[in-house]
């Protein structure tokens, strides 16, 4: 569905060349739900803009839904849907009118566009809001409207840029419910960016992490966490001295009376670890294991935390 090869994009900012995307390769198969992660300025949005034909690549090629984004943008546009970071509906226009307009943009006849608009209003629980303007909607309602607009032409591939950012937990859950239902019903390929790592972890089948304009990790959330981060074992001891000795014995780091170490499989490593410490006469007070997060993966890869990043408004 998406095939990008050696994609680059440079900008000129105040006479300086900024390489936003530098040699990105990406393949996404039909039907996949892929989460695209990375810190601000990593090239996420630029990549998304290239793939959705909003921005021509400086070099490299990208084929999206079977067509080249640079040479056949119209064919790509007809096949993809896009829900941007900002609100899709114009402020002056009524909810239903915008849905009808969107259908007309894809060449539907007025009657077809109207029927499709009503269908989507029902599908996304927007029917009571049909005559309102976007300014009078709640954040969650606006996002549902954005989703409805992106679905008018039943795209095979839908790009979602931060679909749940800025929403309250209930609205986030609702949006996800709609996204997943859509996928189940139509097998739509979904490619999304998100700032919520736990969302990517639980919802996505595949996670692609980008940093400095390049893909630095790619796999299922489980693979990435197992291969790149590993489980965290946290032990506490009675004294700081014991902690230091324990750290030396099992290969971890000590901080006060706490010892931390990363292992591929904590459940298997724990008994061995405790036996070793027992033999060294270190008294372990508590022992705990934690599964890694995607943030741990990013930390392991770059030495930086994704969570430190400011969430854009």
């Amino acid at each position: 569905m998406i095939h990008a090869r050696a994609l680059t994009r440079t900008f000129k900012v105040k006479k300086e060349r900024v390489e936003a995307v530098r040699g990105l390769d990406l393949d996404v198969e039909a039907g996949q739900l892929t989460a695209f992660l990375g810190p601000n300025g990593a090239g996420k949005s630029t990549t998304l803009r290239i793939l959705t034909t909003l921005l021509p690549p400086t070099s490299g090629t990208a084929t999206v839904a079977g067509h080249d984004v640079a040479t056949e943008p119209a064919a790509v546009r007809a096949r993809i849907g896009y829900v941007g970071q900002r609100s899709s509906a114009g402020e002056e226009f009524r909810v239903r009118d915008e849905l009808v307009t969107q259908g007309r943009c894809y060449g539907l006849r007025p009657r077809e566009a109207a029927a499709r608009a009503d269908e989507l209003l029902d599908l996304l629980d927007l029917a009571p809001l049909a005559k309102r303007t976007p300014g009078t909607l709640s954040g969650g309602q606006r996002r549902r409207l954005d989703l409805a607009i992106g679905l008018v032409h039943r795209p095979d591939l839908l790009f979602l840029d931060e679909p749940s950012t800025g929403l309250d937990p209930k609205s986030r859950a609702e949006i996800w419910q709609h996204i997943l239902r859509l996928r189940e019903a139509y097998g739509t390929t979904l490619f999304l960016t998100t700032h919520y790592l736990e969302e990517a972890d639980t919802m996505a089948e595949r996670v692609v992490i980008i940093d400095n304009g390049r893909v630095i990790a790619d796999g299922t959330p489980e693979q990435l966490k197992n291969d790149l981060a590993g489980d965290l074992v946290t032990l506490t001891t009675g004294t700081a001295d014991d902690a230091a000795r324990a750290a030396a014995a099992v290969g971890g780091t000590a901080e006060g009376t706490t010892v931390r170490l990363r292992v591929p499989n904590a459940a298997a490593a724990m008994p061995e670890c405790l036996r070793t410490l027992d033999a060294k006469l270190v008294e372990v007070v508590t022992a705990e294991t934690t599964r890694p997060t995607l943030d741990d993966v990013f930390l392991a890869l770059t030495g930086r935390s994704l969570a430190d990043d400011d969430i854009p408004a």
Partner: protein
Amino acid sequence: MTTFLRDTATVFSREVRPALRNPVALVFEMGQPLLFLFLFGALLDGAVGSSWQWFVPGILVMMCLTGPMSSGYSLLVELIGGSMERLMVTPLSRTAMLVGRALKALVLLLVQAVLIILMAIPLGFELHAAGVLAGLAQLVVFGVGLGAFSFVLALRSAPGGTLFYVVSQSILFPLLLLSGVLLPLESAPAWLRAIGQVNPVTYVVDAQRALFAGDLADPSVVYGTASACLIAAAGLALGVRAMRKGLIRG
């Protein structure tokens, strides 16, 4: 071509629908020109011959400067918000996006112009049908140019928008005041008249006044039409260039 026409119709009907849903707003938007018309018109009655005959064309030019310019503003708002981006990911023609918008601004302008003329008739405005029609046609040409300029300005100003406000505020008012729309430049000091002479709007205003008085053969009509056509040509040329560069930021 047929898809282009369909796309233009799509954009036009999207743009025009809010106005149709709320026609009262159309009259409120005319508040400022109407106020100017009635206050200045009453004030200047006698000073410039029949003040309505003199004032109505001036007010129409003024609306032409504010109307199409505000269509650039609405484009800017959509560029800053996400709705323009969303439309650009659809197969909708880029050119149709601007043409449809411009058409809406022109239709609105014509409706408002006709309303102003109808309101002025009972006050003593003398209707010269042929002159008025020619005048409105000239206004449309002028409006196309101004609309194109405002679109270019909006495209250049996105995503910040500051440029748009600075340019439209610092250019629009001097252009308006130095064109003799509100007060006759004939009695102005020489330096002010000299500035008026290089202001293209002055020629359009003079031509409008001649046309609305029924003097279709007045030489000012030629100058005014030439000025309107030049503005339209320059605006469209810049507009096409901005379109080619892509309606895209970055």
